[in-house]
Structures are given as structure tokens and as C-alpha cells.
């Protein structure tokens, strides 16, 4: 298996993304997903249109996660999320995509934390437009995991690397907790 970097392989990262995305879409939207073929993107991506939601990861490892989809799919996902009709992009649609991204990348982070140590999660930033490009300032490799939902394609992607500012990495033992805890 190809290592993303020391500590986690490409296959493990892909599995974490697929598992989190499938669970979030199934639980919150009652939507089944068809997985697409994974690819790695390092060069600047071709100009895109639609909605992109980005979240930063920071800790002993640093990186970003994002969810990108066409505007039409963003409206469908928001409609399923909030049980309301959204014929076009508005604040509620963008907020819905931001929260879905937060759940997906947050759950990917939980899986990664069990191997790589504690990380923080930024609040999401959502971009909606046409003919725009996104790229990592450090030009890292993105692991891109496509899915198909309701006949439309969307992608969840993550780039992550050891934090060069942190000298020692001490993975913290732990395990994901169940959905509902009685404490």
C-alpha cells in the first residue's frame, strides 16, 4: 500500500473517507452512494464550477479536507438535509453543505486521530461560483474520492502531511466512540 506519509497508507485514508461519507449521507440524508474510482491530484486542478466546502486540519499532522459538488446536487442535498425545497443556491444550501462537510471531515479526523494523534478542525469555508480553482499553498497531494448520488458526481478529498513545526509526534491511543453515550 502506498503511504500518504509515515503513519497512514493511501488505502487507509480512502477507507476513512468512504466510511465517513457513506455514514453521514446515509444517516442524515437517507441517501445511498455509489463509490467512484479514487485518484491522486497534485497538479493544479482544472477550473471547476459549483460548490466547494473546505475545512482545515491542524495538529501533529496538518492538511485540509473538502467536499465539492455541482450546484444542482448541493440544492438536492440541502433539500434532503432540511426537508425543504431549494431551487437555487442560497445561504441555507451553503450552510447545509458546510455542515455535511464538517461531519464528513470531522469523522475522517476521528479515524486519523486514532493513528496520528490529536488534531483540531477549523470551521468550514464554502465557495460557490464558476470557473474557479482550488489548490494547497504547499502543493501537497490530494487523495480524491468521488461518489455518485442521485445521478450526480461529487468528490471528497483530503491532503494531509506531518506538521514540520512539531518535533515529536506522539500518537494517542483511543478509539471512536458510539453515537450516543450515557455519561
Amino acid at each position, binding site marked *: 500500500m502506498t503511504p500518504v506519509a509515515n503513519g497512514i497508507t493511501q488505502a487507509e485514508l480512502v477507507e476513512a473517507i468512504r466510511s465517513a461519507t457513506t455514514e453521514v449521507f446515509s444517516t442524515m440524508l437517507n441517501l445511498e452512494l455509489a463509490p467512484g474510482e479514487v485518484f491522486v491530484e497534485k497538479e493544479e486542478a482544472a477550473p471547476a464550477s459549483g460548490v466547494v466546502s473546505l475545512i482545515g486540519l491542524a495538529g501533529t499532522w496538518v492538511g485540509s479536507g473538502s467536499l465539492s459538488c455541482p450546484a444542482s446536487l448541493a440544492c438536492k442535498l440541502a433539500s434532503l438535509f*432540511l426537508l425543504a425545497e431549494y431551487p437555487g443556491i442560497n445561504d441555507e444550501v451553503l450552510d447545509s453543505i*458546510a455542515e455535511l462537510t464538517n461531519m464528513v471531515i470531522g*469523522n475522517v479526523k*476521528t479515524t486519523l486521530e486514532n493513528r496520528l494523534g490529536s488534531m483540531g478542525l477549523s470551521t468550514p469555508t464554502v465557495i460557490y461560483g464558476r470557473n474557479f480553482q482550488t489548490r494547497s499553498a504547499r502543493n501537497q497531494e490530494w487523495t480524491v474520492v468521488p461518489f455518485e448520488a442521485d445521478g450526480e458526481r461529487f468528490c471528497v478529498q483530503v491532503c494531509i502531511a506531518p506538521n514540520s513545526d512539531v518535533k515529536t509526534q506522539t500518537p494517542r491511543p483511543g*478509539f471512536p*466512540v458510539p453515537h*450516543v453515550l450515557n455519561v
Partner: protein
Amino acid sequence: MLDVLIVDDSAAIRKILQRVLRQAEIPLGTVYEAGDGVEALEALRKQPVGLILSDINMPNMDGLEFLTKVRAEPSWQKLPIVMVSTEGTQAKVLEAVERGATGYVRKPFTAEQIKEKLACYFE
């Protein structure tokens, strides 16, 4: 009747939680909303509630700091606070409990999970 404060920076999640509460067969009073810990403290000072549902990752003041500030106030020390968050590691849950959380629900959640978790507060 129990008044509830929902604290989350996502308006979508506040809307979903409010809908779940209203659909549950529970003696629900007024539901208040706040977008972060700062807003939540202001809301609490204006209007006491019987239950708080709070996210952890929020701007300005996150859910754990909010929890600490609430527990530092003598009149709020027994107020039930259930964290609703994507944060799912054992360490994060234990930190929330140590700071005074009375319950924890991990996102994503189903309506049934929320109802089950909150039922004891409405008995």
C-alpha cells in the same frame, strides 16, 4: 415544560435539532438558539433554560470553553448540557465530561438517537 437552548454555528443543525425536538412527544417549552459560546452565555443570562444542546467546534468561544464557563457559575452547575459534535475520540468525550457535560451525541445522528438521549431530561 422544558425550555431548551441549542448552540451550534450551523443554522442547518440548529434547524434540524429544533425539528427533532418538536416532533418528539416531549413536554417542550421554548427553544432558543445561539451561534457560539459567547452568544449562548448572553442568551442564558437573559433567559434561563432547563437543557442545553451544544456543538464543540465553534468560532469565538467553542463548546468546551462554554461548558467550563457555565459550570463556573454556581446557579448553572446542575444545568444539563448535552454535547452534539463530530468530535468522536475517547479523549475528547472524556474532556467534555470532565468539564461538566451530562451527555454526548456524535454527529451524524438520527432523530431516534437524539430523542433517546434526551428523554430522561423531559421525564
